[in-house]
């Protein structure tokens, strides 16, 4: 068949040889993978918001992407307002995170009350449509709110040093930084913060869902609302609690997203939302560790697909050379298909225990 037109070329043979040199290539690959992991953590936290809500209502909460953008907007405003303030950067971050968690969490609860709860007994796809409706509404509401201040694309002003290198040469942990950099891991401080915050939220969430009475009740409601009622569990309250937790996670992920990528606008939620939901599915929807694993896998795969053309160029494989960043997204989907064919319930999804 016709080769796809090759767009990439790695230049002269000498250049190719230098790049092929392990000392150049290894840090590159490591860096791409680590970058993918960082990205993956962002997806993972967003994915958790989807998975929580999906878990209880079997609803793809399309509005989650806007809940998370709301968190990002709150974060933006906090950083903006506090920018002239000389307080510690980490404190600012904490304020931003907490504010975003509260706003997004309450927003999510409100959405559930207004748009999903009245439809509890309707066919499953009806709330899906209201979710889409809410998502559209929120997009414009966010745009209006920010628009009145003459803003559309919101660019984060991060505290001093957050965008700088992690353990830069002049800092006290320069040794660690240098060591990491020799093997190719070149992180910004905000990446490290992002990973730390993600891991912490994960740990808390995991405890909440698996170890507490609340968590068990939520899971019972997820499986059989009516019978849960017979156990004395108020299903509506548990669902609200789930939306609160999911929304708070959305808030966190919004701030992390804004920090990592620097810019958000009212419409920014859709793409990462879709990928995050894909991650949730990949990991096994409804499963918390699954969502995380899925996010990380997708992050890494996206980044690796993004650099396939370089390897294609190096190896002289023309067909690989045309696999460039424009294939990132669908590469992730194709991987998803392949994985699901072999593992139909996702990486960590429990195999369907339907017994007949």
């Amino acid at each position, binding site marked *: 068949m016709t080769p796809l037109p090759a*767009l*990439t*070329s*790695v*230049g002269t043979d000498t250049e190719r040889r230098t*790049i092929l040199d392990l000392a*150049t290539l290894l840090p*590159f690959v490591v*860096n*791409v993978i680590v*970058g*993918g992991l*960082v*990205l993956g953590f962002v997806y993972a936290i967003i994915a958790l918001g989807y998975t929580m809500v999906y878990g209880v209502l079997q609803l793809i909460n399309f509005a989650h992407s806007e809940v998370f953008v709301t968190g990002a907007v709150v974060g933006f405003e906090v950083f903006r307002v506090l920018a002239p303030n000389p307080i510690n950067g980490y404190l600012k971050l904490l304020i931003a995170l907490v504010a975003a968690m509260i706003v997004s969490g309450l927003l999510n609860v409100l959405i559930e009350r207004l748009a999903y709860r009245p439809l509890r007994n309707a066919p499953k796809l009806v709330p899906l449509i209201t979710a889409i409706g809410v998502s559209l509404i929120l997009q414009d509401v966010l745009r209006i709110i920010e628009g009145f201040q*003459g803003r*559309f*694309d919101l*660019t984060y002003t991060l505290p001093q040093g957050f*965008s700088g*290198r992690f353990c830069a040469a002049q800092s006290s942990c320069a040794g660690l930084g240098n060591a990491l950099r020799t093997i190719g891991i*070149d992180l*910004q401080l905000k990446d490290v913060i992002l990973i730390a915050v993600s891991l912490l939220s994960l740990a808390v969430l995991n405890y909440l869902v698996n170890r507490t009475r609340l968590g068990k009740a939520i899971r019972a409601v997820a499986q059989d609302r009516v019978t849960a009622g017979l156990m004395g569990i108020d299903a509506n309250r548990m669902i609200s609690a789930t939306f609160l937790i999911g929304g708070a996670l959305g808030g966190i992920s919004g701030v992390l*997203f804004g920090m990592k*990528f*620097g*810019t958000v*606008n009212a*419409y*920014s939620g859709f*793409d*990462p939302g879709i990928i995050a939901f894909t991650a949730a599915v990949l990991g096994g929807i409804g499963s918390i560790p699954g969502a995380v694993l899925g996010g990380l896998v997708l992050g890494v795969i*996206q*980044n*690796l*697909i*993004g*650099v396939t*053309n*370089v390897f294609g160029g190096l190896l002289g494989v023309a067909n690989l050379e045309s696999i*460039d*960043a*424009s294939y*990132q*997204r669908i590469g992730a989907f194709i991987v998803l298909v392949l994985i699901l064919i072999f593992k139909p319930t996702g990486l960590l999804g429990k195999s369907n225990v339907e017994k007949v």
Partner: protein
Amino acid sequence: QTTIKLATLSPLSGGQSDLGTQIRNGAQLAVNEYKPQFQRLGLNLQLAPYDDQADPATGTAQARKIASDRSILAVVGTLNSGVAIPSSAALAPSRVALVSPANTANQVTDRGLSNMNRIVARDDAQGPAGANFITGTLKANKVYILNDKTAYGEGLAREVEKALKAKNVQVVANEGTEEKSDFSSIVAKIRLQRPDAIYFGGIYNQVGVFIKQLREAGITTPVVGGDGLDSAELVTIAGPQGANNIYFTTVAAPIDALPAAKTFAANFQKTFNDAAQGFGAFGYDAAKVALQGILNAAKANGNKAPTRAQVEAAIRKGNFTGLLSGNVSFNSVGDRKAATLYVMNVQDGKTKLAASVPVRPAKQ
């Protein structure tokens, strides 16, 4: 008294509505300005704004609506080449002339429609201009090209690639990406391949984010782009660290460099409580071209409301003056005969004129 209308067709809702609204508002100013002149001919001039949502199908539907309103004699639009192509085709049978303030893709006029005109340069002029700048001023030998995978961005990038290759410059990649936030793999590749310059055929809101991440990764390589970068927002998005070493070609001179533009900008601010940007000025110019065309046609028609066909011909043939971007006349397919491309430079968050390049379409 007969009512005649000038329509605008641009995205008034959705992600690109800011630019689309600029065009509408620019055209509104022109209409306000010309109202008295038409009044004298006994014609009541109005603006009829249409929203294409930056979507080809919606644009076509709107174009057909425009076609059905006989009082509309010409259209200013569109913003996106991808919309202009089908919309102009839908308007062609009705002989409704379009004057585009933004569409640069070659295909827009290459189809030879009698109703499609543009006052901006073509991508096959803009591309080589960018390429020339890369080789001439930046002296780059190795260039990394990116595009946004839209009709506009990819078309432009392809022109740049062609021009660079013709100059024997090494083009490391011409890579498309629809990604809006995460550019980490691309940044990693750029770091690996160390180009002397990066060209990005795309629009400011995407390119700005890319630049920000590029600079944060410590890469200071110059980034070059096209008219898609011509927005005040670029600097904000790229951030203080990022807004350096950026160059872009555009068709409008910086507003503060033109005395006429000053009043325009003030007017714009007063009327819409919003700062005028490049596309506001383009919209204004395009509307002026259309209105002058209608006036000419009316005069030729004995000071009566002209037919659409007459307007179409008048626009294609006319010479239009008093515009912000200089005089306009069109060649046989509707390209502006002599356009000027300006190369702008962003340094420390300030946008300055770096060079100006006269360009002409291949056909005259």
